[in-house]
């Protein structure tokens, strides 16, 4: 789960990472109230999960109530790279002496944690990585040893941290706790600023939590409640499906993440575009299939459905029974192409015979099924 800035700062505070104080506002009135309480000048920041908010006009400075009203009016409700802004974070403007970059993540190739520190913060770090890779210190951490004094000293030295370096070990220690004890896949601070009072403060927070660790973090519920999803994604999650909305016209249902990805690819190869990624997971019984059909059949973009099942442990006859049962309760708005292969495929096809029509079509291979689904979608939209 990706956290928005204000959630990320809350997360940081739990582990002792110094952050700027601020308030969340969802309306002009709330914004005004927050700014008066915090004291002008303030910064108004759009709370959406996209990078480059500043450049896109999602961050503005306000030195009095009139400017604040202008800023809040401009940002609240704006479309920021496809996301509607419903919340702004308001915090006192900091006097900044220097901007650093710090992040912790897993280096999968090395199988170690990776600490990155740069004295060139406040700008697009990927740009720094391209143009001046030497400006980013990269130090590995063995999970058994943790963040040692040597590692910290090495990072500070390599990155050429000057001002505020005496506070750096404490900040890095807190960030490391947030990363490990907090079960984050990524913690990134850009910029980590040296304020004019000499303190290091996280002015931004980019945090990705490891969903697999949710069982030991009941406190994440609060973040989850605030999570903005494509509403179809929220419905799918509530029904235990792994769903991602896309913008094509072919609705996809497959079992297994790899097969679902492959299905998207094949649809594109034969000239179509998928409306979604949907992985049924291990089971594909009547209940799961009904949920999947519900979610996808209700998507107005979908002109044809492609159900792509390969039976390994999942048996095709069970899947076929699931489809038949689901068709009883879900009204199909568009044609559905089914491809069943693998364990008990023949039995599965026998069972499907009862529902086959010009709206429910059975194909035997992935490619021919994709072609048929794309044809059906074209016909429907013609």
């Amino acid at each position, binding site marked *: 789960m990706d956290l928005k800035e204000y959630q990320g700062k809350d997360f940081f505070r739990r582990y002792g990472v110094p952050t700027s104080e601020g308030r969340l506002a969802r309306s002009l009135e709330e914004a005004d109230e927050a700014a008066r309480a915090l004291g002008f000048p303030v910064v108004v920041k759009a709370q959406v999960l996209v990078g480059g908010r500043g450049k896109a006009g999602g961050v503005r400075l306000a030195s009095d109530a009139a400017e604040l009203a202008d800023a809040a009016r401009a940002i609240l409700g704006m479309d920021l790279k496809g996301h509607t802004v419903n919340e702004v974070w308001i915090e006192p403007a900091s006097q900044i002496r220097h901007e650093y970059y710090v992040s912790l993540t*897993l280096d*999968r190739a090395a199988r170690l944690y990776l600490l990155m520190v740069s004295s060139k913060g406040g700008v697009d770090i990927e740009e720094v990585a391209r143009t001046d890779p030497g400006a980013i210190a990269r130090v590995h951490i063995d999970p058994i040893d943790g963040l040692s004094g040597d590692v910290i000293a090495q990072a500070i030295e390599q990155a050429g941290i000057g001002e505020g370096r005496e506070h750096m070990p404490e900040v890095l220690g807190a960030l490391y706790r947030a990363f490990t004890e907090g079960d984050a896949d990524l913690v990134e601070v850009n910029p980590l600023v040296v304020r004019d009072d000499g303190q290091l403060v996280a002015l931004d927070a980019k945090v990705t939590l490891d969903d*697999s660790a949710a069982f030991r973090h009941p406190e994440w519920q609060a973040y989850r409640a605030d999570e903005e999803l494509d509403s179809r994604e929220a419905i799918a999650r509530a029904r235990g499906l792994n769903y991602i909305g896309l913008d094509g016209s072919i609705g996809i249902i497959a079992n297994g993440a790899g*097969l679902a*990805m*492959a299905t998207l690819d094949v649809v594109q190869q034969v000239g179509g575009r998928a409306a979604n990624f949907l992985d049924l997971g291990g089971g594909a019984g009547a209940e799961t299939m009904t949920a999947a059909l519900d979610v996808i059949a209700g998507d107005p973009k979908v002109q044809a459905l492609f159900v792509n099942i390969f*039976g*390994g442990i999942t048996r095709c006859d069970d899947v076929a029974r699931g489809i038949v049962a689901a068709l009883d309760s879900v009204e199909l708005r568009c044609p559905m192409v089914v491809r069943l292969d693998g364990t008990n495929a023949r039995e599965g096809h026998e069972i499907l015979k009862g529902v086959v029509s010009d709206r429910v079509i059975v194909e035997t291979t992935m490619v021919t099924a994709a072609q048929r689904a794309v044809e059906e979608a074209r016909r429907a939209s013609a």
Partner: protein
Amino acid sequence: MSIFVDETTRVVVQGLTGRQGRFHGLRNRDYGTKVVAGVTPGKGGTDVEGIPVFDTVKEAAAATGANASFVVVPPQFAPEAILEAAAAGIPLIVCITEFIPAKDEAMVAALLRRNYPGTRLIGPNCPGIISPGRCNIGITAGEIARPGGPVGIVSRSGTLTYQALFELSQQGVGQTTCVGIGGDPVPGTTFVDCLAAFEADPETRAVLLIGEIGGEEEERAAAFIAEHMTKPVVAYIAGVTAPPGRRMGHAGAIVSGSSGTARAKMEALAAAGVIVAQNPTEAGQRVVEVVARLS
């Protein structure tokens, strides 16, 4: 021959008395795998359809000569189970458990590396390993595999592995070993480990590699193939159309920024002389063609 497992492999199932452990453990035994023991703390002395259950892996190994473990326990307990098997001297551990927190996986990998360098972990979050006709540890349906070789399969994706096995078997092409390394960020066994083992295995004469978006595993495989492989390799990479920044099912399957794209992986593999297919079906066809040319 085969890689990592064969007909002498003796398996202890950690979690045999659970619903999943019982189901897959017994299926593995039905396939002909020597499933010699189960382990569930507190249930030592009982049995599951004749398979003796012990409290610890150490006791199970001492009593039955088990030399491989199949870990099928919930994610909260899997890290400890893997380390227990390693401490008991089990050289091969197959863990199918999904949703183990990444921090726990990284710690397990670090501890294995430091304290048990001789232990091989396959998984977690993988379908397991099958050497058709000899040994099946995990959740692969044995009947879709075909004994006799000459193809070795290594894959990050479960269903695509089954699909590959099925398509090859349908066309009369057998497999030496099929390893599902799993889709998590820190797999115990990598593509390169499997490629090296297939290269060294005289019975394996061609390899099918199934990758997906995310990470750099496929790029490392490409570098290894260019440098060390003499046997033909066919590859398919899932996720060409995956949008950046969205996690597609597997913890590892995420395109971040410009790295980890399917295109980059396909280009790296093609540059290493690998036959790169555009979809799983085509991959099967390419392998059949490669095998036909081998004779």
